[in-house]
């Protein structure tokens, strides 16, 4: 049994308005045909009324969702668009990494500048025969707090002989492997995280640390330049370490990291928005002839 003419007209009018919710291209291509099919269904006596409206409603909501998903895929998930966006993302990531790593290396290398000169000068004095205690003026700097560069003289076994700086009242020493490297190559530049008592000779008593063997990292890092001292008589004269707390450098590195990170996020956002806008303006459009 078909609907009364008045109801048919009302249903059809409502359905025609609802069709505006379909995506543009689909609407231009099929809305008129859908409206005609709906009109035919309303007029069809063989179709039970109570089945038609639920069928139309269910079909409307499922198909409108599906067509909008299809529209989104056709608009934004085109392979060329995604490929271009990915290429731009890779370039932006590379640029952001360069924005971080280049200043970071400049800062890191610059952190060694005064220590290189101090180590050179101190090695020259020691090689002229000046004793460590004469060459290293007592300063009592606290490694954990002071940003002032300092020097430490170690004997050939890596035990401290004279120092301008202390950590909790003791003079830490770099790992024995650093001294081994310097024995072979003459100089090493490292970021050193002092651990009290962590030297290979910690069991032996040192005139400066009293042989204490504490295993405790203080979370500080020192930009250290270690050089070999060669006495004139050919005897090994030990090592000189010139260092400086890297706290300020690390703060600047952190700032650079944040700026590079924000730049990266900004670039990715621009790429995302730009790709979305490009996808939208180049989306498949309805053919005018079908309107």
């Amino acid at each position, binding site marked *: 049994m078909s609907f009364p003419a008045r109801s048919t007209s009302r249903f059809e009018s409502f359905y025609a308005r609802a069709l505006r919710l379909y995506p543009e291209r689909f609407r231009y291509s099929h809305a008129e045909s*859908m409206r005609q099919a709906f009109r035919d269904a309303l007029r069809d006596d063989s179709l039970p009324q109570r089945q038609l409206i639920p069928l139309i409603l269910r079909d409307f909501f499922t198909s409108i969702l599906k067509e909008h998903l299809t529209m989104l895929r056709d608009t934004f998930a085109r392979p060329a668009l995604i490929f271009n966006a990915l290429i731009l993302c890779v370039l932006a990531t590379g640029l952001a990494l360069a924005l971080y790593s280049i200043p970071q290396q400049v800062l890191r290398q610059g952190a060694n500048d005064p220590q290189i000169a101090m180590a050179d000068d101190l090695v020259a004095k020691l090689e002229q025969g000046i004793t460590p205690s004469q060459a290293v003026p007592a300063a009592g700097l606290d490694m954990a707090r002071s940003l002032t560069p300092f020097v430490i003289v170690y004997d050939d076994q890596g035990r401290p002989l004279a120092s301008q700086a202390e950590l909790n009242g003791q003079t830490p020493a770099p790992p024995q492997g650093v001294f081994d490297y310097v024995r072979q190559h003459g100089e090493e530049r490292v970021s050193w995280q002092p651990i009290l008592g962590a030297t290979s000779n910690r069991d032996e008593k040192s005139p400066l640390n009293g042989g204490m063997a504490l295993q405790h990292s203080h979370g500080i890092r020192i930009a250290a330049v270690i050089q070999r001292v060669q006495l004139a008589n050919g005897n090994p004269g030990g090592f000189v370490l010139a260092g400086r707390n890297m706290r300020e450098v690390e703060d600047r590195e952190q700032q650079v990291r944040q700026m590079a990170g924000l730049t990266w996020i900004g670039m990715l956002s621009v790429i995302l928005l730009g790709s979305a806008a490009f996808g939208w303006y180049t989306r498949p459009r309805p053919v005018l002839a079908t309107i």
Partner: protein
Amino acid sequence: MATATVPTAPLSPAVFAILLSLAEGEKHGYLIMKDALSPQGGGVRLGPGTLYGSIDRMMRDGLVEESGLSDDERRRYYRLTQLGQTALTTELARLDAAVTSARTLGLLPHGGQS
């Protein structure tokens, strides 16, 4: 743009019902909906949105095309392409093999044509 390959995966009920309906000849949307709803057409309940969404994709895949016919009420008619015909034949053969297998296993009564 039409892809020149026959779909290999089993067709969806809606696509199969539309192909089956159009195998009889050119039809407009509501006739396809009625055919699909009938037991012989697969008993698929297609509304206008699902029907024209499927037809849209099938036209893009080259399975059906507009015939160019139109009647007094401006209904648009569709027909199978050669590729659509092949897809329907392939799907029917697949279903026929499945029904034959079911009969062999005793899941369906013998008698009649599969």
